């Protein structure tokens, strides 16, 4: 079982993000990113489960010159598994999907997800045509992911296995128009509101 701690993983992967934009899936990835790396260039999902990767694709298509990182959970990714096929068919070079995989539905009572039963998300992404797709279990593998996350040609996929631990809620803003306007103004400037 992985000993990686999810919030430390999130902090490490985002500490040198530069101008990259971030989309987080509902639940712990949103709490983690807000807790350790809040930024106007973060868009926090609080619902629409299964949509995070596709929000990332739409953003990557619209902003081809920017690195787009999606940080989501295994349950959220499993609900939108078909989006890995859609992204694989599109092959956006600037999109990276990172699944923080604790093999649990953390919001609903820690029920095991499919990844606890042997489903390997990175293998699905690889089969869908991602340029790279790895499962990360160790600190050394995490260091390698940190280096490739903003540099390697996409689409890039990584499932980072993390230790099961109680959900630590860190309440990110959840007002949708605020989150959307905050993000767009940071990315697009004052023209975002025209």
């Amino acid at each position, binding site marked *: 079982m992985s000993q990686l701690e999810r919030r430390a993983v999130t902090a490490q992967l985002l500490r040198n993000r530069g101008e990259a934009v971030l989309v987080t899936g509902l639940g712990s990835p949103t709490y983690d990113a807000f807790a350790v790396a809040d930024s106007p260039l973060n868009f926090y999902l609080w619902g629409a489960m299964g949509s995070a990767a596709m929000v990332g694709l739409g953003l990557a298509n*619209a902003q081809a010159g920017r690195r787009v990182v999606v940080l989501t959970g295994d349950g959220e990714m499993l609900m939108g598994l078909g989006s890995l096929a859609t992204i694989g068919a599109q092959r956006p070079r600037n999109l990276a999907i990172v699944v923080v995989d604790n093999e649990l539905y953390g919001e609903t009572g820690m029920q095991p997800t499919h990844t606890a039963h042997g489903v390997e998300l990175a293998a699905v992404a690889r089969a869908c045509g991602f340029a790279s797709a790895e499962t990360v279990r160790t600190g050394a593998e995490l260091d390698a992911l940190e280096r490739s996350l903003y540099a390697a040609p996409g689409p890039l996929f990584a499932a980072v296995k993390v230790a099961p631990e109680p959900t630590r809620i860190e309440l990110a803003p959840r007002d949708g128009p605020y989150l959307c306007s905050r993000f767009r103004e940071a990315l697009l400037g004052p023209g975002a509101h025209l």
Partner: protein
Amino acid sequence: MSTAVTAPAWPDALYDALLAAGVKQVAYVPDAGHRRLIELARANAGLTTVVLTTEEEGIGLLAGAHLGGGRGVLLMQSSGVGNCINALALPAECRIPLLMLVTMRGEWGEFNPWQVAMGQATPATLEAMGVIVLRADDAERIVETVRAGAGLAFDSGRMVAVLIGQRAIGAKAFRK
């Protein structure tokens, strides 16, 4: 007046209207009624066409497009509307523009009874999620309705579905 079957002119005018509205991403699960529009979009290197595995992917995609300062359109048939329900929470809560073009099945001379349930439930399903529903049942009204829907979506920041009636497209022929 000729009665020969010819390709309708409206998909080409509809394509021009979408370009004029600033659409750059065209996402779809195919329908025969959208065939010409999809062909035109795929032939334009200036557009990103995104074939989806299920219609709800398009809701997230177009929300992402808006976050990135872009515009898009989502094409589907009515059977795909139900797939979108929970994903619509995203544009609904964030007041993100959404333009959906839905070709209708299950309503006008439908042969396949399995299309009727979702087809008949389509307007109520969309409205239950806060989507503004516009209808075009005559071919000559389709383009102006889409133009109006695009304005409502992109200028007023609303979710809009234009239902293109089976009457305008013609019922799918199963029997020879």
